[in-house]
């Protein structure tokens, strides 16, 4: 049972984490990003579309569609994020409004396009793309360690990808010149500008990174939760990851902690319902657990939270 909690918890927490990292990039650069929800859905749509076409062309045991889906979902999320970037950076729109608009549009467009593509390309009246069931890896040796070994058991391949991406993202944000510029843009864009760096460019690229990471996360959810792409992908994981990053004070490592907490709270809840053999309706009540926990934790921690100073502010050269 403990194994199951750890395995399921990780497979939920890691996509959430990578999406939250995307959010951190965008918000540390000063662009409020409520669009994560829409970005992950749009990215996953592109990934699932590519995977569906590849699955028809390749033998069924091929792993290429899986990795191609991950990669194209990142591209798709990145391209769609440019819409948010254009609105927020170039058009100077209200960032909160833009984020919500992007979400609503993403949901409408992908649901509509899924139907249209299914009808035109496959001649089927379907509102989803079926994906292959993801393979899972177990690392021999390490996985037989008691308790901790569960971390190495039944891993989705995407979990490895996410860990690699997360390490790179951490390095770039905290150890490179570009990362420093991103962080500076969110705190004092005037100073960045004075140093001769284009604030708009940095912010634009940060939003694109958040799109790519969200797209990856969306694709992971599509594979891990139901092995299909459908409108059920919009269940609010984007918002949950925003809560995680606020909770993690816009820093990558504390955010990881928050995501793990959500993941384990969710999987533990499910296990409790199953072990105690409660009727299935109780699982609805247990589903509330991560959200109540978030609210309670926010109550205790929000006061000390330091959001990036220029978060949500439209950059105005004339202001000081």
């Amino acid at each position, binding site marked *: 049972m403990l194994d199951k909690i750890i395995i399921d918890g990780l497979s939920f927490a890691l996509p959430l984490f990578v999406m939250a990292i995307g959010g951190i990039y965008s918000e540390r650069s000063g662009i409020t990003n409520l669009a994560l929800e829409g970005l992950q859905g749009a990215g996953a749509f592109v990934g699932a579309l590519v995977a569906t076409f590849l699955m028809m062309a390749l033998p069924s045991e091929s792993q290429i569609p899986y990795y191609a889906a991950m990669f194209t979902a990142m591209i798709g999320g990145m391209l769609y994020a440019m819409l948010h970037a254009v609105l927020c950076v170039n058009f100077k729109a209200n960032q909160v409004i833009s984020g919500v608009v992007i979400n609503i549009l993403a949901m409408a467009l992908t649901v509509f396009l899924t139907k249209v593509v299914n009808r035109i390309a496959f001649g089927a009246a379907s509102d989803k793309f079926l994906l292959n069931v993801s393979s899972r890896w177990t690392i021999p040796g390490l996985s037989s360690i008691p308790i901790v070994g569960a971390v190495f058991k039944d891993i989705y391949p995407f979990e490895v990808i996410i860990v690699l991406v997360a390490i790179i993202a951490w390095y770039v944000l905290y150890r490179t010149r570009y990362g420093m510029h991103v962080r500076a843009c969110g705190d004092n864009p005037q100073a960045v500008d004075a140093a001769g760096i284009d604030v708009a460019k940095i912010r634009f690229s940060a939003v694109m990174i958040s799109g790519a990471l969200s797209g990856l996360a969306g694709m992971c959810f599509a594979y891990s939760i139901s092995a299909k792409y459908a409108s059920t992908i919009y269940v609010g994981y984007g918002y949950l990851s925003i*809560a995680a990053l606020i909770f993690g004070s816009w820093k990558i490592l504390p955010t990881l902690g928050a995501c793990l907490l959500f993941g384990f709270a969710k999987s533990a809840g499910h296990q409790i319902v199953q072990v105690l053999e409660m009727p299935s309706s109780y699982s*609805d009540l247990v589903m509330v657990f991560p959200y109540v926990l978030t609210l309670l934790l926010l109550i205790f921690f929000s006061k000390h*939270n330091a959001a990036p100073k220029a978060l949500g502010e439209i950059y105005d050269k004339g202001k000081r």
Partner: protein
Amino acid sequence: MKQKNNSIAKFFVKMLGNEKYQFITIPVFSIIVSLLVGAIVILLLGKNPVEAYGNLLQGSGLLMKEKYAGGKGMLTDFLSFVDYWTPMIFAALAVAVALKAGLFNIGVSGQMLAAGFIASVTVGYSTLAAPIAKPLVIIICFVVGSLVGGLIGFLKHKFNINEVVSSIMLNYIVQYVTAFFIYTKYVDPVSRQSKNIADAARLTLKNVEIGALKGDIPLGIILAVIVAFIIKYVFDKTTFGYEIKAIGFNTNASKYAGINVGKNMVIAMMISGGLAGLAGATYYLGYFCSMQPKVLAATGYDAIAVSLLGNSNPMGILASSFLINIINKGSTYMSSKAGLDAEIASVITGLILLFSACGAYIQYLVKKNKDKIEENKKAKGEA
């Protein structure tokens, strides 16, 4: 080419340049552009856009259909349209009130469901007589909604919790908790929804005979229009409305001016939540008479679009909600008649939203071009 560009710019400046009317010209411009984009998509799908848009109007009871079933007519469709329009007005007003205070109430759907649920289980399943039940439904929904809204405001004020995050968390909590109770206590075994409420508690009078026709009379619409005017009055003429707006413009400045920011913020969210509660009343105990577990009403999210489109002005909201409601309500008929996916309607709504979010930029572009044209004129005059 330069010449052509110039004349296009001139045309737009002429159409949109008058600052006095920009509050209406720019939204109308966004709508027209979105409808054009939608028309292109419909054309690409090989369908006739004029016909499709006509179907939207027909489905909303604003245009005659070719034939009607017995006892039904344009009036039946229109009454049903108004019935669906009512919760949209309340929900959009809820978003607007919060926006005025600089808060973003994305939890309208959750507040709607919470209010609808409590009113259903207390009054909806009781045997109270209509004259008591109906007002009671309205009061309970307003109170429940304002409590949820107030909680969000309180968390923001007291604990500095971003209202977007807390309202989304509350949305989930409401959604799952109500689903739990519906499944365990109030479920209708056939429809898998909550049991239908008593007609006495319902804010829509069903199947009333009007001449030869039958239609549903939505009582809530009267309240919705009155509330819209009250809110306009409060924001235009009262100190309280002014203080709320001041907070929305600049929190710090209002604080220095001696406005109690925290109190006003909580009150604004309470009103916003209360209005969302009324939307829930007219939605779950009006247009519908039961609740689908684990589903939040799309109305709560569309309301954001409506409110933005209407410049969060109550009169603007009456107009914009009317328009968005045509698209929503008419889409079912359009999809059955023209064979288009009903989802195209939400795509068009999304596009309208997208263009209205660019409103400030369009305004800026127009101003820039206007200045340029005027400069050119001056230069010509001098030469």
